[in-house]
C-alpha cells in the first residue's frame, strides 16, 4: 500500500514536471497528458509544454485565418477570467479554470474546439505543441 502510494506520487510528480505548469486538477491533467502523447507522436524530441509560450500564442495576432478572428482574444477577449463572445453575439464561458472549473475536462470537446478555432484564427491546424502549450497555460489559470 505504501509502495503504491509512492508510485502514484512519483507519477504525479513526473506528470507535473512534464507539463511544466501548475495543474488545476485530475481532469485537466488527463487532457494535457493526452496532448503530450500527440506532441510526442509528432516530434520524438518533445520535452514538455511551455505555459508561457501558450500565453504568448493566445494573445498573439495571427495571420492566415478569418479576417474577423486574427487572435484567440477576438472572441475570448484579453481577460480569460471573464466571458467572451462569439461573432454571433453569444456569451462564451471564461477560459480560466479558476473561474470555470469544467474547462479542459472533456477531451472530445477540447479537440473539437482546438480543431475549429485554430483554423478560424490561423487558417490551419495547430501543432500538438502549440495547442498543448495553450491548454497548459489556461489550465493553470
Amino acid at each position, binding site marked *: 500500500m505504501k509502495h503504491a502510494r509512492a508510485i502514484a506520487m512519483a507519477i504525479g510528480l513526473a506528470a507535473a514536471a512534464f507539463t511544466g505548469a501548475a495543474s488545476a486538477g485530475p481532469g485537466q491533467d488527463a487532457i494535457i497528458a493526452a496532448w503530450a502523447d500527440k506532441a510526442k507522436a509528432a516530434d520524438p524530441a518533445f520535452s514538455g509544454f511551455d505555459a508561457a509560450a501558450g500565453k504568448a500564442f493566445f494573445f498573439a495576432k495571427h495571420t492566415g485565418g478569418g479576417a474577423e*478572428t486574427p487572435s484567440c482574444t477576438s472572441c475570448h477577449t484579453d481577460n480569460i477570467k471573464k466571458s467572451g463572445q*462569439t*461573432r454571433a*453575439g*453569444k456569451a462564451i464561458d471564461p477560459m480560466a479554470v479558476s473561474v470555470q472549473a469544467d474547462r479542459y475536462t472533456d477531451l472530445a470537446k477540447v479537440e473539437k474546439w482546438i*480543431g*475549429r478555432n485554430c483554423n*478560424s484564427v490561423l487558417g490551419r491546424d495547430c501543432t500538438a505543441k502549440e495547442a498543448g502549450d495553450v491548454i497548459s497555460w489556461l489550465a493553470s489559470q
Partner: protein
Amino acid sequence: MKRLLLAAALLASTAVAATAADRMVTDEMTKAECAACHIAYPPRLLPAANWEAVMAGLQDHFGEVASLDDASVAHIRDYLVANAGKDDPTAVDAEGKPLLRISERRWFVGEHKGEVSEASLKKAGTWANCVACHKGAEKGQFDDD
C-alpha cells in the same frame, strides 16, 4: 363571396401561423451544437435545400470553422431537413444558390424593415443575434416586437 374569402383567409392563417412550440428545437444534439455559438435557429426558418447547403459547408460557416464529425453532421442535417420550412424558390442568392442566411430571406427583411434602428442593430452586433431583441428566441418566441 366575402364569407368565402374570410374562410379562406382563416384557413390560410391557421396553416401558416407558427406557434412558439412549432419553432422549438427539440433535438438535443442540434440544440447543443448550434447553440454553442448562436441560438439554435428554428428549422422551419429555412427550406430543406438551404439546410442541406448550410450543413454541407460547415468548414466555412460564415467565416468560421464549424466542422463536426460526419455522424453528428448527418444527424443534425436530418433533423433540420425533416423539420424544414416549405420549399421556396425565392430563397436563393443572385447566383441561384440556396440562401444560407435566414436574415436574407424576403419575409425576414420585411418583418424587420423600419422596426430595427441602426443603433439597435449595432448593439446586437449582427442579425444572427436574435436574443438581443427577442428575449424568448431560444424558446421559439419571436412575436414580442
